[in-house]
């Protein structure tokens, strides 16, 4: 009898093979690649804004009435606003707020929503299921934007509280998603096998069922980035998110709305930035869904 000491990690070639296979599935649709590039670009711009933006100081307290309300030109590619701040640079910094919002909200929402959904799904039919899912239903019944508005208006308007507001109404979607998956998966034979072997409930929920939910969760997360960013921008637009003079994208759109249509660039470019960002995450999410899809043939 031979004893072979095998390292637990996959050999290098296997990892490359997996990556290659996943890229193949992802890249069938060129739109997904566009989405990926867009998101990567935005992340790059957000992270390196202080070094990449032409006028990084314009993102903070800065005033230059001499150059205020300049239309787009070579010096200010997207023009300047009424205080003379370069719109392009501010958009780069605005991406920071948007991405932060998306990441933080999801980082809080997923660890809450997913386990609840798993527990409810595995215990389908019991009181535990009923309690969890009815609470979820209550949260889902409230119109999202109104709930966010209500919460944000009670608290001091700023980015943090906007994030809290969105978080509170976002977690139920994950619970719902995972509940559906888990309640089906629990009837699979590999779950019955694990039970027959004597595995603990904890292992079954998190070791057997959860790995089979990862793909839809990731796909949803990507699409959710788009939604959360949109929601955050909406809150900023109505004055409940990022406060001026900070360059939140929604805030910038609101700030320029008084000056439409003559000084259109002040609102339009930040709005386009939101569109591009949201579209990028949507296309990326589609690509992820293709990537996770089971192979036929």
């Amino acid at each position, binding site marked *: *009898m*031979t*004893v*072979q*000491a*095998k390292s*637990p990690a*996959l*050999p290098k070639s*296997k990892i490359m093979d997996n990556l290659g296979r996943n890229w193949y599935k992802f890249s069938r649709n060129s739109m997904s690649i566009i989405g990926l590039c867009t998101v990567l670009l935005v992340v790059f711009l957000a992270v390196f804004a202080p070094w990449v933006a032409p006028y990084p100081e314009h993102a903070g307290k800065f005033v230059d009435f001499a150059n205020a309300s300049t239309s787009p030109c070579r010096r200010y590619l997207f023009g300047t606003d009424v205080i003379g701040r370069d719109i392009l640079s501010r958009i780069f910094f605005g991406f920071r707020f948007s991405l932060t919002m998306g990441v933080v909200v999801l980082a809080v929402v997923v660890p809450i929503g997913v386990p609840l959904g798993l527990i409810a799904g595995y215990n389908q039919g019991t009181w535990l299921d009923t309690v969890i899912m009815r609470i979820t239903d209550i949260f889902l019944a409230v119109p999202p934007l109104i709930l966010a508005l209500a919460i944000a208006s009670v608290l001091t308007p700023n980015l943090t509280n906007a994030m809290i507001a969105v978080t509170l109404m976002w977690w139920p979607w994950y619970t719902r998603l995972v509940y559906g998956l888990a309640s089906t998966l629990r009837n*699979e*034979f*590999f779950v*019955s*096998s*694990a*039970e*027959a*072997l*004597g*595995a603990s409930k904890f*292992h079954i929920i998190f*070791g*057997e069922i959860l*790995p*089979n939910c*990862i793909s839809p969760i990731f796909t949803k997360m990507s699409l959710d980035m788009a939604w959360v960013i949109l929601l955050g921008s909406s809150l900023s637009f109505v004055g409940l998110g990022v406060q001026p003079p900070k360059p939140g994208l929604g805030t910038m759109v609101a700030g320029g709305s008084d000056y439409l249509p003559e000084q259109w660039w002040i609102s339009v470019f930040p709005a386009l930035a939101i569109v591009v960002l949201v579209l990028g995450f949507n296309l990326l999410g589609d690509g992820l869904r293709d990537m996770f899809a089971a192979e036929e043939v």
Partner: protein
Amino acid sequence: MTTDILTVTDLKKYFVIGYSDILRREPITVKAVDGISFTVKEGETVGLVGESGSGKSTVAYTTIGMYRPTAGSISFRGQDLFEGKKGRPLALKKEIQIVFQDPGSSLNPRRTIKQIIELPLKIHRRDENRQEQIVQLLEMVELPPDYMQKYPQMLGGGEKQMVAIARALATDPSFIILDEPTSALDVSIQGKIINLLIRLQDEFHLSYLFITHDLSLMRNVASRVAIMYLGKICEVAKAAEFFRNPYHPYTQMLLSSIPVVSEEEEKLKPKKIISTGEIPSPVNIPTGCSFHLRCPEKMAICSRVDPVMVEMEEGHTVRCHLYDQEGGRR
């Protein structure tokens, strides 16, 4: 002197699948298993045969603990498997394992083979040299150690089933339920798995409950065969006897429909009985003997009274009015 390892006594399992009306006055019940009794002796293979709706899978799932019986009992070496409310103790779970029909769904597609086989080791064995044990188990089912890193999708159907068998063996059980272990596989790999199971039985003194609808396979695997129809056992006999001298009309009907590949086998089959009509749904079990609607030998009493099991020869019992006191063809 062989002892009984598994004793099933008057087992019943009913499922309520709905109600007759909105006021929930009368439940609609499926009597999946409706009073069966049999034993498995240490080291033997008992075969359970039946069509869909016969309840054979329900017997398997109840024995493994997925369901609790509605009535009756199952004992393992004298110990009731369903004692108490808390579920089966780990020590009993260790002894009784199951291999499911479809290895595609009985192996978690998101776990590696190593993780799949490691799970029972983690639960039941304290020792730390799991790596070694996994390699040993893979060797027992004739799979190379480098399969540990693979995912189930990378294996063929036969190989997946061998992993499922290795996993069942990992708890060092005494009794394994095999629920159609090769039905989902091609015939060219079926033999390898069956012969492996037979060798393992020899080596580890295992007892098997072998469930299949393939009578030709059953002929070569089981030492005793029981045939089920709509939740009840119709006939039990030693394998050779079962095929040589079937008493129950249903047994004869099934045996006459087996597709065989040679003339010699053809000669062994009973005269062709063409089954008419559909298999009744287990929700609507006919009164009296549940088989009477399809039975070519039906008598008046068959639609009124359910027959009881009688012993024709030693070890050969049948439940049919043709042979009991009332029908009188003994």
